[in-house]
């Protein structure tokens, strides 16, 4: 992993272990969902984040609960990295009342405002203006909170990308736009749908910094995000950070992925796995002992077992929930 000295110095063993754990939680969460969805036990559309863990975790490691993120249809990873409860997430995906949204949102709408997680989003490009709004609040209220907008390479061609980045730029808002360029929007390649060579190239049109990192390299993301978040906190405005990554599963569960190349898959999913690479790095750098990391793995597995049981066994929402929470008060 090509990482600068400064990171090596600032990265504590504790932080590294936290990041390792979060990446594993995401991976394990997604593989669990993949399995139970395949068994026909989960309702709705599900889009899995496995393979892209380093992006969400590398970025969110610099955020507190006061900072906000906006997310996408592929939102589980962002939720977990931002600190959402696994039980509450799983119960949500099961449509149970113990879910983070009382079962009314589902996979595409998991949110936890208290954690600064402003919601997964079923609308591609929906998150851009929403991130700007959180940044605007920070500016008007003169806090040092930042907002992060995660978005896909497909979303990069939606009009909201343009409107939001321009607004963040002219107002110098504390917003970080994080492109998760996994090469595909559904069954369309990034190269087909996008006229830019790199998404980060578009930053120049807004006079903001654009940077490209290897999104499979946790520390590369971590380092670049640190710079961008610091700039934002200091009132130096937005950044466009492009992370080159890969999604291990299909666009949604059920997708046969004919558009992917099998060699490419092999390489990306096996050789270039962000979690394996980071574990290896931690071991060689002495940031954690193998036993410690194994222990984290065990603990994450158990947490997921717990989450599934919790989701399965939780009750459905009461029928009265059907029309509740549309308005504050309104018969």
């Amino acid at each position, binding site marked *: 992993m090509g990482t600068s000295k400064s990171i090596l110095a600032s990265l504590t063993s504790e932080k590294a272990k936290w990041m390792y754990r979060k990446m594993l939680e995401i991976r394990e969460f997604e593989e669990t969902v993949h399995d139970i969805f395949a068994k026909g036990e989960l309702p709705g559309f599900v889009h899995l984040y496995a393979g892209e863990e380093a992006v969400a975790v590398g970025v969110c490691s610099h955020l507190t609960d006061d900072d*906000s993120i*906006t997310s996408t249809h592929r939102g589980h990873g962002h939720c977990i990295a931002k600190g959402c409860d696994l039980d509450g997430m799983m119960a949500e995906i099961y449509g149970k009342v113990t*879910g*983070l*949204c*009382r*079962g*009314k*949102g589902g996979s595409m*709408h998991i*949110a*936890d*405002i*208290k954690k600064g997680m*402003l*919601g997964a*989003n*079923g*609308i591609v490009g*929906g998150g*851009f*203006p*929403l*991130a*700007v*709004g*959180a940044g*605007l*609040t920070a500016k*008007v*209220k003169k806090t040092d909170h930042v907002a992060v907008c995660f978005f896909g390479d497909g979303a990069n061609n939606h*009009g*909201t990308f*343009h*409107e*939001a980045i*321009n*607004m963040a730029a*002219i107002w110098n808002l504390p917003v970080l736009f994080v492109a998760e360029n996994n090469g595909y929007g559904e069954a369309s390649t990034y190269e087909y749908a996008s006229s830019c060579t790199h998404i980060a190239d578009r930053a120049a049109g807004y006079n903001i910094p654009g940077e490209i990192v290897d999104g499979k390299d946790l520390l590369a993301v971590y380092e670049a995000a640190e710079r961008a978040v610091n700039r934002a906190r200091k009132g130096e405005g937005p950044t466009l950070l492009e992370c080159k990554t890969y999604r291990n599963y299909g666009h949604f569960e059920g997708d046969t992925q004919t558009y992917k190349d099998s060699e490419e898959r092999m390489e990306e999913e096996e050789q270039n796995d962000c979690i394996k690479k980071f574990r290896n790095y931690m071991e060689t750098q002495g940031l954690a002992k193998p036993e410690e990391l194994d222990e984290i793995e065990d603990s994450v597995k158990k947490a997921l077992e717990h989450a599934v049981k919790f989701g399965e066994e939780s009750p459905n929402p009461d029928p009265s929930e059907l029309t*509740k*929470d*549309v*308005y*504050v008060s*309104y*018969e």
Partner: protein
Amino acid sequence: MTKIITFSKAINEAISTAMYKDDDVVLIGIDVAGGAEVDHLQDQEAWGGVMGVTQGIVDKFGRDRVIDTPIAEAGFIGASVTAAATGLRPIAELMFNDFIGSCLDEVMNQGAKLRYMFGGKAKVPLTIRTMHGAGYSAAAQHSQSLYSIFTHIPGLKVVIPSTPYDAKGLLLTSIFDDDPVIFFEDKTLYTMKGEVGDGFYTIPFGKADIKRKGKDLTIVAIGKMVHTALKAANQLAKKGFEAEVVDPRTLSPLDEETILDSVAKTGRLIIVDEAYPRCNAATDISAMVVDKGFDYLDAPIKMITAPHSPVPFSPSLEKLYLPTPEKILAAFAEIMGDNSIVTK
């Protein structure tokens, strides 16, 4: 204390009153101040919106709270949704309601749904002010009355005042409501004058106002159409019929009770709605009354609306496009089976 001011000034007052009261209230939109970053421009000379409705606000509260935006409705309306969800109480201006085409997603799929989708864990105290209405030869893309679309969408509250007094009170209620509200301003009403209360006052949502009492006919009229209905009522009075004119003031929530009570009394209902005729507020109110007050009805419910066509530019056609007192009288004559109502 009250005074006589224009509809436009009433809105301006509501905004300043709210902004004095609560620092979290911000005003955001295209040229709501105008001339941001123009050196020589004194804030008191700033535009204050394309129709001058927000003139002087930037002067009082500064550009940190009166925020000019690029021409990017999806961007700034979407931003207003989460600005609301993260601690501000924005008043966003969608200049003409016709421009909803550029930001429906932010209103319908984000703003209106957050609270519900998130299991009640988000609130979106956002007010969107927007201009509507024909009559100024502003043609097909600047003259629509699109409140029916917003009334259709759960999660939005829809407000449409007909007088300066109502405009101020309802706007203050909107701003301090914890849900997204769409506030419709008929551009041809801005110059209308009326009595308005001083200081802070609110008018509750879901309470219709009976603008005129009567026993022979109920006319439910929306926004500017209230005045058309009142004119018709005056003409009817000369012919010996007393029409009751009900102004719902908010379409969502709708005060069903007041409408039903009136129809129970009069047995006849005409609804006046400037919007396109299909799936509009007139059909909504008619269907509600038939469902819940069928036995009160002595006659078919008539709807006076625009025809099913875009708004024509030519003043000669636009005049025919809008509901008029004459059309109301003709409908009444029809349900009474008494042609003398229009001929005499």
